[in-house]
C-alpha cells in the first residue's frame, strides 16, 4: 500500500549548517491493512518518512508510492494525517473542526453533521461536540484529531507521534481505545512513535531506524491478534520484543548522542 524505494532526503543547508542528509537508501513496503510503526532516535528522519507518505514533501532520491501511485502532493481521498500538535482550529467547536475537515474533503453540507457526530461517538466525545478545543484536555484534543482523520474515511492513516504530548496513563487508555478502533476500521496505518510500549502494543510490524542519515536497521514482526488487550502488555512476547527493540535503540541513541557531541567538538575546532 505504501512503498518507499531506495528513498533519500537531503535538506538544503542554511547558514553555518551544511546540507543535512536526513534519510539514505530507505526501502520499505507497508502492506494493506497493516499497522506499521517507525521508531528511532530523535533526528533519525522518521517524521520525514511520514511527510513523504503524506505527500507534504518529495524525496531527494528514490520513489514513494501510495496505492501504486507516486506522491507528488497530498491525496486527501486516500490519506489522512494525525499530527502531533493536534492542529485543531481554536475558533471552531469540536464538531465544527470535524465538519471543516469534511468540507475540505468535499463532503456535501447535509451529510457533514451526522458523519462528524458518528466519529465523535466512536472516540467517546459526543457529549463535547459543542465545546471549543481550549476547554479540552490534551488526550481529548487528540481524540478529536483522530476522529477528524477517521471521518475522512481514507484507506490510509498516517500518525505522527499522536500521543507524544500526553502523560503515560492517558497514552495507555488512548492506546487501547485506538487499538479497538483500528481493528474495526481495517485501515493501513503508519505510526511514528518514540514509545517502545506503544509501538509493540499497537503494531503488526515495527521498523527500528538508525540515526543520521536515517536508515532502516531492522523490521520486527509482532505476532499477536488485534484488538489487543491490557493482558498482552504483561505477556512474554510483549516483553521480549520490547527488550529487543530497547537494545537496538540503546545502541543507536548512544551513537546518535555521542555523534552529535563529536560533531560539536569538530565545529569548535573549525
Amino acid at each position, binding site marked *: 500500500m505504501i512503498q518507499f524505494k531506495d528513498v533519500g532526503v537531503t535538506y538544503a543547508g542554511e547558514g553555518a549548517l551544511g546540507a543535512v542528509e536526513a534519510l539514505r537508501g530507505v526501502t520499505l513496503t507497508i502492506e494493506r491493512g497493516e499497522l506499521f510503526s517507525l521508531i528511532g532516535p530523535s533526528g533519525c528522519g522518521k517524521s520525514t518518512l511520514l511527510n513523504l507518505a503524506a505527500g*507534504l514533501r518529495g524525496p531527494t532520491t528514490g520513489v514513494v508510492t501510495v496505492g501504486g501511485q507516486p506522491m507528488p502532493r*497530498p491525496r486527501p481521498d486516500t490519506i489522512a494525517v494525525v*499530527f502531533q500538535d493536534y*492542529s485543531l*482550529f481554536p*475558533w*471552531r467547536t469540536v464538531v465544527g473542526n470535524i465538519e*471543516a475537515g469534511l468540507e*475540505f474533503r468535499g463532503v456535501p453540507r447535509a451529510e457533514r453533521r451526522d458523519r462528524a457526530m458518528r466519529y465523535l461517538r466512536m472516540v467517546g466525545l459526543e457529549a463535547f461536540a459543542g465545546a471549543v478545543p481550549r476547554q479540552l484536555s490534551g488526550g481529548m484534543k487528540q481524540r478529536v484529531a483522530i476522529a477528524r482523520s477517521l471521518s475522512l474515511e481514507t484507506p490510509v492513516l498516517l500518525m505522527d507521534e499522536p500521543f507524544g504530548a500526553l502523560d503515560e496513563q492517558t497514552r495507555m487508555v488512548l492506546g487501547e481505545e485506538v487499538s479497538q478502533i483500528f481493528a474495526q476500521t481495517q485501515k493501513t496505518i503508519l505510526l511514528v512513535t518514540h514509545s517502545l510500549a506503544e509501538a509493540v502494543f499497537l503494531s503488526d510490524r515495527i521498523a527500528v531506524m538508525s540515526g543520521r542519515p536515517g536508515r532502516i536497521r531492522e523490521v520486527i514482526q509482532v505476532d499477536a491478534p488485534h484488538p489487543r488487550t491490557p493482558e498482552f502488555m504483561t505477556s512474554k512476547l510483549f516483553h521480549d520484543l520490547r527488550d529487543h527493540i530497547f537494545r537496538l535503540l540503546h545502541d543507536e541513541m548512544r551513537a546518535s548522542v555521542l555523534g552529535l557531541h563529536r560533531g560539536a567538538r569538530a565545529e569548535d575546532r573549525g
Partner: protein
Amino acid sequence: MSTWRPGGALAASAIQGAALLAVVAVWHLATVERWVSPLILPDLGRLAATLVALLARPETYHHVGVTAYEFGAALLFALSVGLAVGIVAGTVRYVGDLIEPVLLALYAIPIVMAFPLCILFLGIGSASKIAFGALYAFFPVAIHTLKGLRHVDRGFIRAAVSMGAGPRLLLLRVLIPAAFPVILTGVRLAAVLGLLSVVAGEMLGALEGVGQMLTRSVEALVSAEAFAWILITIMMVTLVGGTLSWVERRLERAR
C-alpha cells in the same frame, strides 16, 4: 471578576470614577475661584446649558451628519482597499515581500502632511476630508491584515491542505478566521484614526462638520461652545467604539 481586590474590575472603575470626579472638581474650582479666565475655560453650569442648547439646534445635527458621512465614506474606502491589499499581500508571498516594507515606510511618514494636497486636489468640501480620513485608515487595515495572514500557524495550513483544502477554502476557513483577531485590531485602529483625521481635517480646512464648528468657536472665543463641540465629538467616538465592539461580538460568533 467584579470584586474589591486591587486589579478587580470594580476597583478599577472606582479609581477611574474618582479620577474623573477630581478633574471635574478642579475644573469647577478653577472657574469659580477665577484662576482661569472664563474666555478660556467656561464654568460647568454654562457648559451644560450650552451643550443642551446646541443639542436642541437642528444645525448641530447637520454638522454631526456631515462628519459622520465623511467618516463612514472614509472607513468604507479604507476597509475595501485595505482588506484587498492586505489579503493579496498576506497570501501571495512574492507580493507580500514586495509591499510590506513599502507600507511600513509610508505608514511611518506623518500622513498629516498630505492634507494640504487633499485640499488642493479635491477642494474644501467633503471629498478632501474623505480622502484624508481614508488615507489614514487604510494603513492599519492593510498592515494588520497582511501581518495577521502571514503569521497564521503553519500547522493549521498543513492540516487543512492534507485534508484537501484548496486555495479558496484555505483562505475562507483557515487563514481569515485564524488571522481574525489581528485583522480586527487593524479595523479598530482604522475606525479611531479615521474619525480623528476627518475631524482634524475639518478643523484645518472645511466649511462644515463638527471639527470646523470647534475651530470657529475657539476663534470666536466662545469657550463654552468649543467645549460643547468637544463633548459632542467624544460622544461620536464613544458611539463608534460601542458599535465596533458589538460588530466584533457578532462576527466572533459567526466565525
